[in-house]
């Protein structure tokens, strides 16, 4: 926790931003980022149908402001849905590097979280060996409710991160 406070103090020392204004900007930024997560999805496995339903009728993730997007340049969040082999994980990393800060990664399903049913496979890898994962959503496959709960956890995390002034992995 020491590092995060120093970032805030460093900004304060360098630019002499008055603390109330800094806090206000921080609050507004946290609010805006929290309610406007635009995820791009990398669907490689059978969690896909469950993930599609989160944007469909009944579940509707757009209530939280989550709007699935096509292009990585405009997105904030990668949702890795399904099995990631060693080769695919490199693509996830490539995607991650193309996005602008602040960026988040959500691992959906048992395979990217741990190795899931492929626990003894030599080629399937947990995705957090390649990119920093913010939220893990377990399940094989996870229900749409679980995915929405994961997104709500990500919202909380985004808000707290802004308050601390840094990423807390």
């Amino acid at each position: 926790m020491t590092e995060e406070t120093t970032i805030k103090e460093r900004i304060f020392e360098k630019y002499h931003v008055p603390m109330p204004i800094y806090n206000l900007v921080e609050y507004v930024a946290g609010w805006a980022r929290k309610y406007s997560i635009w995820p791009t999805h990398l669907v490689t496995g059978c969690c896909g149908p469950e993930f599609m339903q989160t944007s469909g009728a009944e579940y509707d993730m757009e209530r939280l402001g989550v709007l699935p997007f096509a292009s990585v340049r405009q997105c904030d969040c990668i949702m890795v849905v399904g099995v990631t082999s060693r080769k695919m994980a490199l693509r996830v990393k490539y995607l991650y590097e193309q996005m602008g800060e602040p960026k988040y990664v959500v691992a959906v399903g048992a395979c990217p979280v741990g190795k899931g049913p492929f626990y003894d496979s030599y080629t399937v890898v947990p995705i957090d060996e390649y990119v920093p994962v913010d939220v893990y959503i377990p399940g094989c496959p996870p229900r749409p409710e679980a995915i929405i709960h994961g997104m709500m956890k990500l919202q909380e995390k985004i808000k707290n991160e802004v308050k601390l002034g840094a990423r807390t992995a």
Partner: protein
Amino acid sequence: MWTFLSINSKPLLQITLIPGLAFILVFAIFAVWFERKFLARAMLRVGPYYCGKRSGLLQVFADFLKLFLKEIIIPDDVNKWFFSAMPVLASTIPALALILIPCDKNWVLWDIGSLSLPMFFAIAGLAPLIPIFAGWASNNKYSFIGAWRVAYMYISAEIPLVLCGAAIAIMAGSFDLVKIVEMQKNMWFALPQFIGFIIFFIGVIIEAERTPFDIPVAEVELVFGWRTEFSGIFFGFTMMAEYVMFQAWTLLFITLYLGGYNGPVLFGNVIASHIFWLIAKMLAVVVFIILLRCVFPRLKMNQMLNLGWKYLTPLALLNLVFVLAMKVMGVA
């Protein structure tokens, strides 16, 4: 020279309120919110809900702020000047066209008399250059394909639009937008020129890149069309540009065919009721065009070009001949 900056002067009100900044921004906010909410209801969803006291009204502000605070990526291989200038120009050039729209006989920001209709087509004709330059400057194959699709689409749409505008000018006997609106006091031009009305409506949808014709940003084929490489607030500006374009062409459509600002006078204030009718008609057309998005699938590029060259252009010529015949026989 600086008298227009005094607080009660008409140009200042026109620049800030209508048809100026506030008009454009409020329209963009309303249109984005309405589109997301309405499409969600059409799909039996709820749409934006938790952001802004269970109405989703603050969703647009959240999106804009987030884009504003996000990192702007300028890739190594792009043409940096063009890449960073185009998003800003994309939303300002269509906004320039708005200053020609009459909100009342005495409420025109740039009153250039009989040059106003040609000037509108000239300014709006500049707008497709921005996507083309942006797509070229991005140095990305998807952006480039999207840019050339924009070029194809606008050429095939703009010729029928200009022909329809010519027919209107012949019927009104003037290129002056105010005179065209004043001619429609008793009968809207949509009735005698029904073919032109339909063609111009399709043309407006094409120019605004709305759904049956959102070919340049086809999300399934091209990643995001000519907008692919833009991130952060640059992307926000390009999205803004879409809605400004939408608004400008819808306003011209109303001015030419649906009687412009004409309508019954409310509460004895002529200018206010004229502005009210203009906005009401604009919102009706905008809602109808947004409704099309949940009905139609996207056309293919060749289907779109067939529509433009094989059907809209000959029909627009037919409309022109019809109007000329009416004018010669003295009916209109």
